């Protein structure tokens, strides 16, 4: 696996100059996954454009994590195909794995390494030369505000610090497409802002970020392309404006799309706020 920095810069420069449309960052066709009786992902089709900040939104249990795991090659689908940057994830792993960076949710890191050791390990596993890994790790640790904790074991990190070191590990080999599963979950506002700045800078260079979340305000302020998932299916996909449609906010559009009506009202909680 080689560093993609040079080739990426070349292709991105080419895109800016010529009219040739690049292949979509991710193309998913007829993707299914069942766990026993339960269907987690029920035949989804997705086409995520390259060079965009893409949000995959949906309520808990919608199948976001399952979808991202299958797209990144960490979970084998029952049916369907996934292509990343025009390469099939399961038939052509060499091309795909060198092009993607992943921050999964609910999986551990090698927590008995310090933050810096984890980056060194990941970078060298990705085939980067030692001195280059060292340089990039130093910069990432500085930008993500982890320099002070770089020699602490990851097992002693807080949630926000774990997300940041995971993000650093995912960015280290300068991937074309970055997949982040709930990158802001449990993260304090300061760390969230840092992550956000790094990601915005990264997409400006022409790379693609795909991230899942159930915080609509966040998606609305960050993304220019949105896919809405509920109960294992895609309910809507398109630019932010297309998905929002007539609704006043993405939150309202989302509630309509997933079919969650107003549950307040009635007299079931009439004592709440009454006489004490």
């Amino acid at each position, binding site marked *: 696996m080689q560093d993609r920095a040079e080739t990426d810069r070349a292709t991105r420069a080419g895109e800016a100059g010529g009219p040739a449309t690049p292949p979509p960052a991710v193309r998913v066709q007829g993707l299914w996954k069942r766990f026993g009786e339960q269907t987690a992902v029920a035949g989804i089709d997705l086409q995520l454009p390259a060079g965009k900040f893409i949000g995959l939104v949906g309520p808990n249990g919608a199948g976001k994590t399952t979808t991202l795991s299958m797209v990144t*090659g960490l979970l084998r689908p029952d049916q369907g195909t996934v292509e990343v940057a025009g390469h099939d994830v399961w038939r052509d792993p060499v091309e795909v794995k060198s092009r993607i960076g992943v921050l*999964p949710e609910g999986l*551990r890191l090698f927590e008995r390494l310090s933050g810096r050791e984890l980056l060194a390990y*990941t970078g*060298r596993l990705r085939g980067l030369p030692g001195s280059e890994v060292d340089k990039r790790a130093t910069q990432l640790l500085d930008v993500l505000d982890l320099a*002070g904790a770089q020699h602490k074991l990851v097992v002693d990190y807080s949630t926000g610090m774990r997300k940041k070191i995971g993000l650093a590990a995912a960015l280290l080999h300068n991937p074309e497409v970055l997949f982040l599963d709930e990158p802001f979950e449990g993260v304090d506002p300061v760390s969230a802002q840092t992550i956000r700045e790094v990601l915005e800078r990264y997409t400006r260079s022409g790379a693609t970020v795909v991230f899942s979340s159930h915080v609509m305000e966040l998606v609305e302020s960050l993304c220019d392309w949105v896919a809405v998932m509920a109960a294992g299916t895609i309910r809507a996909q398109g630019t932010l404006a297309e998905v929002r449609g007539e609704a006043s906010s993405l939150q309202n559009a989302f509630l309509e799309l997933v079919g969650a009506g107003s549950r307040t009202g009635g007299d079931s909680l009439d004592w709440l706020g009454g006489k004490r």
Partner: protein
Amino acid sequence: MSVLDAPAGAAPGPAGTGEGLVGVFVRLKLTLLRNGLRQSAGRRAAYITSVVFTLLFAAGLLLGLVALRGHAHAASLVVLLAGVVAVGWTVIPLFFPSGDETLDPSRLVMLPLRPRPLIGALLTASLVGIGPLFTLCLAAGSAFAVASGAAGAVFAVVAAPLTLLVCVALTRAVATANTRLLTSRKGRDLAVLSGLVIAVGFQVVNFGAQRLGRAGGLAALDPAADVVRWLPPASAVGAVDSASRGSYGQALVQLLLSVAALAALLWLWQRSLVKLMTAPDGSTLAAAGPGREKAGKDGSRLSALLPQGRTGPVMERSLRYIARDPKTKAAWTTALAIGLIVPILNALQGTGSIYFACFAAWMLGIQMYNQFGQDTSAFWMVALTISSARDAYLELRARALALLLITLPYTVLVTVVTAGVLGDWGDLPEAMGLSFALLGGMLATGAVASANFAYSIPQDGAFKNVAPGQAGLAWISIFGGMVSAGLLCAPVIAVTIWLHVADLEQWLWLLLPVGAVYGALISWAGLRIAAPRTADRLPEILAAVSKG
């Protein structure tokens, strides 16, 4: 019966007054116990089995103590027994920190409870369970074994429950005082290593019992008992003995010592409980303020010595995990200790043979099994960088090399030391050759088993090494693998036997190079077979190792 129904229905809570709270806590404990048992049939079976065994054991001890009545050294024995039980109660919370969630004060922080009634309620709730029942049986039996006369009987009636109360207060006081430590990462690491402590402790007890047998029976206990009979809660049992012998003053002092200890423990417990529930948790303070400093260069000395490419970082991480990951460390320490003890001890006792030295290679070779399970779900980081059979081969080979870095010198050392103890230098080359062949077989089958039979290793608890539902997989992997490793070495074993039988013993030294080359060849072949399987099964392996 729901716990929540009881207090909330009546008035705005019992708010820390008297008996209401005791009832709530006892009911809470029973409800949690029942709900825990309702979760799975396996848990129910395990619980019922442990209750039956504990009761049988308690009944046996009780009978033994009753039979001891009138024995000259009975008093020494029961006093020491009480001492041992108290030590047990002290260390239990350190090894099983999450043992009793009803008594976890951090869950009660938001409730309006006063410390004194809370302590009373918690103490009463702590008395519910198999452990306290067992201790009560023991204390009652001990009191009965030494009590005689009316005074003895009176002291016995007080001493038995007092012993139990001191034990329970002791365990709660220790647990509460150490909550911060035990819920921290270092505390949990400690708990994982406790299995080793218990194994070593068992050996010490075993050794002590043997010496006791040689030293001429229970009389050897008397000097120790003379001290322990003044230490609570053993002093309560000692008081029964003193009263039965007519030394009422001594009896009273001993009993009061235990009462005072109970009071002191309750006070200590209350103090740390109040502190724990009102002071802020400082465990995240260090993480919150890292202080801005520039990330400097960090050229690791270890990585400079290891090969470049994939091999170096993988070896480095494997070696770091042996030193830092409590589960991996415990497995390695056990393997290293047993691999040395079995051949050497047997040799020292004169029952050994130099072939026992192969045991070291075998014990350490087991560490090659379930390589990816040792990664836990962090295996995804490895999976994302393996995109061909070549990558998988390099990954497996690097892990085998890291293992060899320790195993190879260790095998040589154990074989040489065993030969030295036995004075059997002539057989050294063939034993070492066999060890190398066996090690090769273990590495080969370990790699294949890692690819085909990965399973999760739960990270908490010292005694769980397989996730629920994967025990079968683990047995197939390890036992199937060990048998196959033996079969793989069959050619070398056959040559050894043939050379012995055919009286060609002058050629036996040849087994050293033959065993080494053969071992290297079969481990290479094993890695070659395992690599494409690993590359093909990455998502399946990840799913299998993520259950812990």
